[in-house]
């Protein structure tokens, strides 16, 4: 099932930095779609299209269509709050909010108007379990979130993106600051999560891309060079540039 359909997407920022040129891409549900390529290729920009986080940036031009569940989310008048509740995001640097562990998770629910403690408790346990963090923090939910280790913080961020039971999860280099063990935990978690979610991941390395991708899209300087199933693309790339990047000849 196609979850997100991207058609002729163009994006330019006012400072002329990173941009996207004529992107066509179908993101399938219940898969890990990996968006990879060297820095400045437009990967993060694309992710920030999917939850309209680009609204915070100085966008000069955006055109094309990005259809999610029959709605063109580029339309200015869509309910962006509803969209962001449906599309969770995890950032490269784990940013925990300056609150305790539990509040980091209940924050989004309380914004959505949820006040019942039982519902909040249930959501906290569920999301932490999904993010493989519950056992480590269940006895210290009221401690400041910054007291967690880097790897734990990033899994807390993952839990935070899951707490609203979104449909899509965007992960922008979620393991770039993590040690191999924490990275492994996050990757394993992603594998379980794709049963229920549509996952779009910007990996922090080609190796990670190859490890986790069901479907992969290679971006270079704002253009989508090649896309295909993970197996195809990493073993048998069609484009010379894709091959060179995967082989580590540049990047």
């Amino acid at each position: 099932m196609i979850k997100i359909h991207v058609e002729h997407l163009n994006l330019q920022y006012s400072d002329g930095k990173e941009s996207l040129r004529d992107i066509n891409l179908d993101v399938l549900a219940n898969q890990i779609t990996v968006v990879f390529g060297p820095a400045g290729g437009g990967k993060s920009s694309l992710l920030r299209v999917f939850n309209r986080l680009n609204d915070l940036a100085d966008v000069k031009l955006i055109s094309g269509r990005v259809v999610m569940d029959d709605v063109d989310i580029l339309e200015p008048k869509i309910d962006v709050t509803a969209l962001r509740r449906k599309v969770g995001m995890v950032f490269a640097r784990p940013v925990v909010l300056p609150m305790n562990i539990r509040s980091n998770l209940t924050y989004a629910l309380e914004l959505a108007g949820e006040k019942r403690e039982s519902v909040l408790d249930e959501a906290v346990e569920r999301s932490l379990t999904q993010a493989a963090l519950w056992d480590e923090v269940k006895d210290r939910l009221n401690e400041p979130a910054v007291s967690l280790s880097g790897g734990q913080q990033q899994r807390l961020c993952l839990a935070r993106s899951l707490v609203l039971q979104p449909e899509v999860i965007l992960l922008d280099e979620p393991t770039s600051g993590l040690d191999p063990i924490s990275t492994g935990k996050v990757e394993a978690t992603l594998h379980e999560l794709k049963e229920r979610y549509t996952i779009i991941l910007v990996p922090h390395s080609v190796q990670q891309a190859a490890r986790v991708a069901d479907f992969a899209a290679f971006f270079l300087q704002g253009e989508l060079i090649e896309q295909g199933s993970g197996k195809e693309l990493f073993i048998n790339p069609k484009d010379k540039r894709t091959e060179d990047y995967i082989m580590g000849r540049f990047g």
Partner: protein
Amino acid sequence: MEYLRGLTEIFRHPGSSASRNLKQKFGFGFLIVTALITVVPIFAIFLYILIKGLPAISWTFLTAFPTDGVKQGGILPAIIGTFYLTIGTAIFSVPLGIGAAIYLSEYASDNRWTRMIRLAIINLAGIPSVVYGLFGLGIFVIFLRFGTSILAGSLTLAIMTLPVIISTAEEALRAVPQAFRVVSISVGATRWQTVRRIVLPQSLPGILTGVILGLERAAGETAPILFTAASFFLPRLPSSPLSPTMALPYHLFVISTQVPGMPVKIQYGTALVLIIFVLGMNLIATIIRSRARAHRQW
């Protein structure tokens, strides 16, 4: 100048290790001396006023009205007046200043309009206080017919205080990491929810510090209340915001320059009360700031 040239010479042509160490010691010593010199005046002023003013301080001095043409008795109405003026200033300047700071930091984009607002704020801070006094006289006392009153004085002081509050509050708001805002927005918060639930609580100590520093300046000013609020002598405490009031800085000015045969210890006693009032506010600000720093989670 000669010294600075010598210093650049040292950096450009480092000599032998021994002479370099000597020069390093000399330079370091010089910097320590400059730092020490800057703290001398504050201690000197405080000590001087403390020594000369302390004999005047008594229960009566703090709780009685002046008598004998202000040469005897206490300074209660001036203390109360300064307290009222400070509160009045806060009522007008705090909501306005914090609101403006939130707008500038969280909502406004960088365009010609906001640059103009910022320029206005910077210039507002540069206006001499006596000009504020004259402005307050023209607008509040005469045009709006508030008369010489706590209201007119508070409004005048509030305008003078605004730039301090706006710029320190804006700085405090901007110090909150941008990442918190992005995260908050990304989980479906509106801009205002983000401000109210994340940014404001995190910047509150910084904002409070700015507010107190601004009010502290207002409490010690003479010129802005000279024409707008202050009276030389009043037989009773102000009964409403439209009453004139006595105030510590103005009282000090009057008893130091306008009253022949004024006992010196009362002058310094008044100065001491004023300086303690102001330093006390400063102390509160410092405590808030250091406590917040200890509890900050970023």
